[in-house]
């Protein structure tokens, strides 16, 4: 890029350098205080120095709203990216990303995130800390599971997960109140689930933790070693309404098949605190077929009303 760029065009708002063979975006961009849209797809970006140093402190770091880096060679999301606090739209589709760093949560203003066509294997729970995220594309990757924390993305309207390696979804997915589009085709979703027969009994630590939580035994941080205070904060609630219990590490996995709009059966993973527990509204039966028969009507019909378009088939 020409060195005098910010002097000649100080009012520049949109810059498209796509398909120009650039291997790095240089410091010439830093002093463009009005630049809100930078399109740099189909280039040779991806090595160190792809983004200019000092991006966080520069005018560009505050002004940029839309950044398109799709069709480049990024192996990982460049750390300089996370200084773009005002960024609303980010595309890194068609790169070579193997993962998403937890730092993604720094992009507090992000509404649109396109990461389709990479080699991503897992999603960090920190992705759920993006309060404005409404469009999330993770299709054509190698994702094996969705963290239940993603249900905290209250603004999510569209979630693209097709062509991945998902076998089930977390039941919390039903909590995404504004989700209208969900694509799941091309995933090896289970149609039948054999209940986990290898149930390891809880450790003494777990049993003690459960007792403290369910009996509401009071404690102050000064009463316990820090590690135990932290352990107690990780309790998860058992979804069995008759249980009201908690679990830490020892739990039973159970898949329930939930009908959507009478057309699709989604396998949703439930975590229960013991083999005697069962997820809401189902009978305490061993076989997976009868579980699918007695699906929670409330859960399904509420979710079905919300999710107008589940693209499974």
């Amino acid at each position, binding site marked *: 890029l020409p060195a005098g760029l910010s002097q000649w065009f100080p009012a520049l708002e949109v810059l498209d350098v796509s398909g120009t063979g650039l291997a790095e975006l240089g410091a010439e961009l830093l002093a463009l205080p009005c630049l809100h849209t930078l399109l740099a*797809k*189909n280039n040779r970006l991806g090595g160190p120095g792809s983004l200019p140093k000092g991006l966080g402190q520069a005018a560009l770091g505050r002004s940029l709203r839309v950044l398109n880096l*799709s*069709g480049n060679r990024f192996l990982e999301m460049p750390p300089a990216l996370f200084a773009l606090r005002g960024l609303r739209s980010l*595309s890194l*589709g*068609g790169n070579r990303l193997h993962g998403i760093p937890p730092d993604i949560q720094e992009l507090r203003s992000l509404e*649109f995130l*396109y990461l*389709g*066509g990479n080699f991503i294997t897992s999603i960090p729970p920190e992705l759920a800390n993006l309060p404005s995220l409404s*469009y999330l*594309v993770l*299709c*054509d990757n190698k994702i094996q599971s969705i963290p239940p924390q993603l249900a905290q993305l209250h603004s999510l*309207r*569209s979630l*693209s997960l*097709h062509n991945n390696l998902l076998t089930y979804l977390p039941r919390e997915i039903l909590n995404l109140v504004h989700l*209208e*589009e969900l*694509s799941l*085709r091309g995933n090896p*979703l289970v*149609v039948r689930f054999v209940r986990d027969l290898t149930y390891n009994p809880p450790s003494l630590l777990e049993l003690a933790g459960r007792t403290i939580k369910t009996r509401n035994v009071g404690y102050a941080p000064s009463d316990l070693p820090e590690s135990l205070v932290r352990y107690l904060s990780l309790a998860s609630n058992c979804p069995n309404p008759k249980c009201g219990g908690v679990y830490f590490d020892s739990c039973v996995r159970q898949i329930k098949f939930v009908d959507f*709009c*009478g*057309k*699709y059966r989604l396998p949703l993973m439930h975590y229960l605190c013991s083999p005697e527990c069962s997820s809401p509204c189902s009978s305490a039966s061993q076989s997976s077929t009868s579980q699918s028969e007695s699906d929670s009507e409330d859960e399904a019909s509420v979710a079905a009303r919300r999710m107008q*378009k589940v*693209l*499974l*088939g």
Partner: protein
Amino acid sequence: MEQPMQTEMWKAESLEELIRILHRIFAEDKVSVEEVQALMESYESNPEEWLQYAKFDQYRYTRNLVDSGNGKFNLMILCWGEGHGSSIHDHTDSHCFMKILQGNLKETLFEWPEKKGNDEMIKKSERILRENQCAYINDSIGLHRVENISHTETAVSLHLYSPPFDSCNTFDQRTGHKHKVKMTFYSEFGERTHC
């Protein structure tokens, strides 16, 4: 549609001319599929002529009505963002022509599922349609899924349906179960609709 006695070889020099010729062709009692397909393919896509209809939506592909063909056909422009795709669907006994105006679209053909079946649907074939190519499908040929598989480029396609229809069935690839859906327009004649 049947083969007329003489197959005319049309060349449409502009979108406006394409529409004019389509009106002429569909005014006849007999219309030839090959004639329409050749006509659609002959039009060389010029974005200036259709940009006003090409309204993209962030979340999914859009259907933008261009011409309602005196009730004989619907001509519309579909805008596909990166990664946008359709479900597997049929064409309600109508003829469907699909011409690529920009970018590429992947078309996957499927067999009709068994009436009482509960099995994974069978893929017949798939192909990538390039700019200016025109594909044709009807229910006797099969079902298809159309998608923009590019993660970097958008795609725009021109569709002709005759007779016009506003509902179709979508199919679950894993079970073959079908579900009737109503189709709506994101814009009509260049104006955004609000539904």
